[in-house]
């Protein structure tokens, strides 16, 4: 056979192999997590684990609800802050800002994205936490150390800005000039054009940006861990401490492994995180498909 053809086949096969390899790794992680979680699942009913709100490993109580709610709170707070800000910022960058400003800001976003999470954590401890405890909480008549889900949400929001803004800018830039012209030529103002046409057209892309932001937020560990208090309780307000799943694993893995089932519980936490992210991505994929279908 021709050597060039052999090379061609070889390239095809090896690429396929690499692809399979990366998928296998994910499967192996899943299998590993499941097998490690089995001891806990055997000792306790899944429903009890998920709905239990008491976490005291020494007594054998492994209730995961505080951690699930911790993750949910921090993520929701960060989204509430980040989504409107990012949408408005990217609309400004694409529709109003000068070319110079756009060229200046977008690379800056990449720099922001490249800052190691631990620095965001330090920033949170030094600035966000004190400001929350000294200035913001007193306004609401709350006494807090500042290590709260609110602080976690703020830090996380800043961390997901870059990825959300850069994707949203990309999406907005794909909206054809003529579509804007169509709306403007009917006598619509720029603002009407943005809210009624551009953002509607860009909706699937904006949702995709939010999904990526959320995925990042779910998994973010160290920065959140540094500012959100890490008390295994159900947060009831913005000013309560929380304990997200990744923080639980990072704080405890490798320690206190002598406690029965502890090891298994942490692996279950990891499995939970895995399933959450997978499920979230799946659901958002479905929503996106629906939106795209509707748009066609």
């Amino acid at each position, binding site marked *: 056979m021709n050597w060039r053809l052999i090379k061609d086949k070889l390239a095809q096969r090896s690429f396929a192999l690499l692809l399979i390899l990366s998928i296998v790794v994910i499967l192996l992680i899943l299998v590993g997590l499941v097998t490690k979680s089995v001891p806990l699942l055997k000792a306790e009913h899944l429903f009890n684990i998920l709905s239990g709100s008491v976490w005291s490993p020494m007594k054998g109580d492994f209730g995961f609800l505080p951690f699930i709610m911790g993750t949910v709170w921090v993520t929701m707070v960060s989204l509430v802050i980040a989504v409107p800000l990012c949408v408005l910022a990217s609309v400004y960058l694409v529709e109003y800002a000068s070319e110079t400003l756009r060229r200046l800001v977008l690379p800056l976003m990449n720099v922001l994205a490249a800052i190691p999470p631990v620095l965001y954590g330090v920033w949170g401890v030094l600035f966000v936490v004190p400001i929350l405890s000294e200035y913001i909480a007193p306004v609401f008549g709350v006494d807090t150390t500042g290590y709260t889900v609110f602080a976690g949400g703020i830090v996380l929001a800043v961390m997901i800005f870059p990825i959300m803004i850069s994707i949203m800018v990309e999406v907005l830039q794909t909206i054809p000039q003529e579509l804007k012209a169509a709306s403007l030529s*009917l006598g619509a103002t720029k603002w009407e054009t943005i809210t009624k*046409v551009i953002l509607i057209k860009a909706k699937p892309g904006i949702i995709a940006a939010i999904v990526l932001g959320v995925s990042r937020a779910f998994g973010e560990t160290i920065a959140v861990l540094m500012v959100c208090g890490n008390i295994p309780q159900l947060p009831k307000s913005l000013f309560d401490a929380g304990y997200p799943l990744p923080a639980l694993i990072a704080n405890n893995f490798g320690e206190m492994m002598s406690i029965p089932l502890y090891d298994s519980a942490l692996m279950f936490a990891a499995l939970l995180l895995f399933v959450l992210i997978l499920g979230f991505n799946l659901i958002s994929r479905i929503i996106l498909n629906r939106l795209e279908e509707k748009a066609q």
Partner: protein
Amino acid sequence: MHASTSIQTAEAQDLIALSPPHIQIKDLNVTIEGKRILKDINLSVPNNSITSIIGPSGCGKTTLLKTLNRLVDDTKGVEVSGSVLVNGEDIYAKDAEVTHIRKKMGLLSQKPFPLPMSIFDNVAYGPRIHGERDKKVLKQIVETQLRNVGLWEEVKDRLDASATRLSIGQQQRLCLARGLAVKPEIILGDESTSALDPLSTQTIENLLIELKKDYTIVLVTHILRQARRVSDYILFVYNGEAVEFGRTEDILLNPQHEITRQYVKGFIS
């Protein structure tokens, strides 16, 4: 080079003198990022007629069209001097309101760009923006305009369907209906049939001819045969200058200017 004022045939001038021109362009100059795109354009567009702007690509005909509804404002680094009078009012006056000006002119672009909403909402978009809230009135407007463009029978059972599901020819007619719904006086067409199949092109052309009894229509086209089929007047633009303006048959059969002659005979394109 050419004279700064366009040559107008005696007949065309007479006709324009009879009724005041709908659009009057005076000493219009447009530069984009330092480059002069339009040079000293003077033109009077007669009422209730179709005027075609022809010329080689890149000659500035689309820019000229966009200055008429001030869409050119959105181009980066653009400077406009001179005046464009619509019914005697200068749309480049300091106190002129852009949204008001644009409402007077329906734009039909090269490719149809339906808004990301239903067929109904596309047509109702303009009236809604200008404050129409009454559902009955909106329904009436939508039906009337869709009938105007001959689309009603084809879509009346699926007004809630997304406008992007329509065929491209239907989309272009929808865009025309959308433009008509804000009750403009002028229709601007920017090579509006260039993306359409011959049959849809014919439909649009016939529509425009029908519509000229109520509207003043200005079309940009690079298809001479189309200009011949639909227009009453032709403006030939070359290199940013209005070279010649006159009745369609005069321009096509008996051009006064050498460069016009070369263009209509197909020596330059």
